[in-house]
């Protein structure tokens, strides 16, 4: 069986994450790059443990499930941060309009 190259695996995961994150990528890139490199290292280690017979198939599957859950958690964090970023952008635009109305008509709008 071929060896897993953690760096190559991390790069593949990174490309997939960048596609998923879209415009919000710049904001979260460093954080996610770091986490994906940890995850890739863990998957590589798990593979080696299984090859060496230290963990059996059943244990490897369970360990893999934990790693997969962590990767999914980061996917949800990326999704959530993208939505929060969109909310901040829209609210900043609304605040600018409120300021314009206040300056132009002299109306103070509370929210």
């Amino acid at each position, binding site marked *: 069986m071929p060896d897993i190259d953690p760096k190559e695996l991390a790069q593949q995961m990174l490309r997939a994450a960048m596609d998923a994150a879209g415009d919000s990528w710049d904001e979260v890139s460093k*954080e996610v790059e770091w*986490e994906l490199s*940890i*995850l890739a290292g*863990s998957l590589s*280690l*798990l593979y080696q*443990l299984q090859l060496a017979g*230290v*963990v059996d198939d059943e*244990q490897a599957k*369970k*360990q893999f*499930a*934990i*790693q997969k*859950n*962590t990767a*999914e*958690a*980061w996917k*949800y*964090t990326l*999704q*959530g*941060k993208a*939505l*929060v970023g*969109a*909310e*901040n952008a*829209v*609210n900043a635009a*609304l*605040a600018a*309009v*409120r300021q314009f*109305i206040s300056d132009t008509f002299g*109306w103070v*709008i*509370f*929210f």
Partner: protein
Amino acid sequence: MFRKLTPLLAVVLLFACAVTYYAPHDAETETKLMALQSKAEFFYQTTATELEAERSLSLETQNRFYGETQEILGNLQNKAESYLNNKDTVHELALLRESFDIAQDLQAHGFRVLDEVLLIQKAMDSHFRALLSLERAKPQRRDR
């Protein structure tokens, strides 16, 4: 006169509102997640230390840790579900509970090498960081 003002009033009312796509930041959730992250870190460090000394934590100690962890995460999940637009955190908490369930099962059958503990410890720590990163990014609650 009123007809002419109506569209303007509508625009004013529209921009008077702030949009909320996302649940607000919850300080209590953040504090409890940080406490649980430290507790889990300590538990797996102790597990590793015991394994190095060719011992293992008692089943009672294991069950107590995993039981308390599930209870805390269950409460956090209920709280997360009570907010609108908070499904990402809800999913992440459900996944973390599942991971702790699997880890409990693996630990009950015994670890042979330190790397097995390290894999779980790193994954759990990263999972907590994902939850905390999202919680800290959420908008602060606005008090009117």
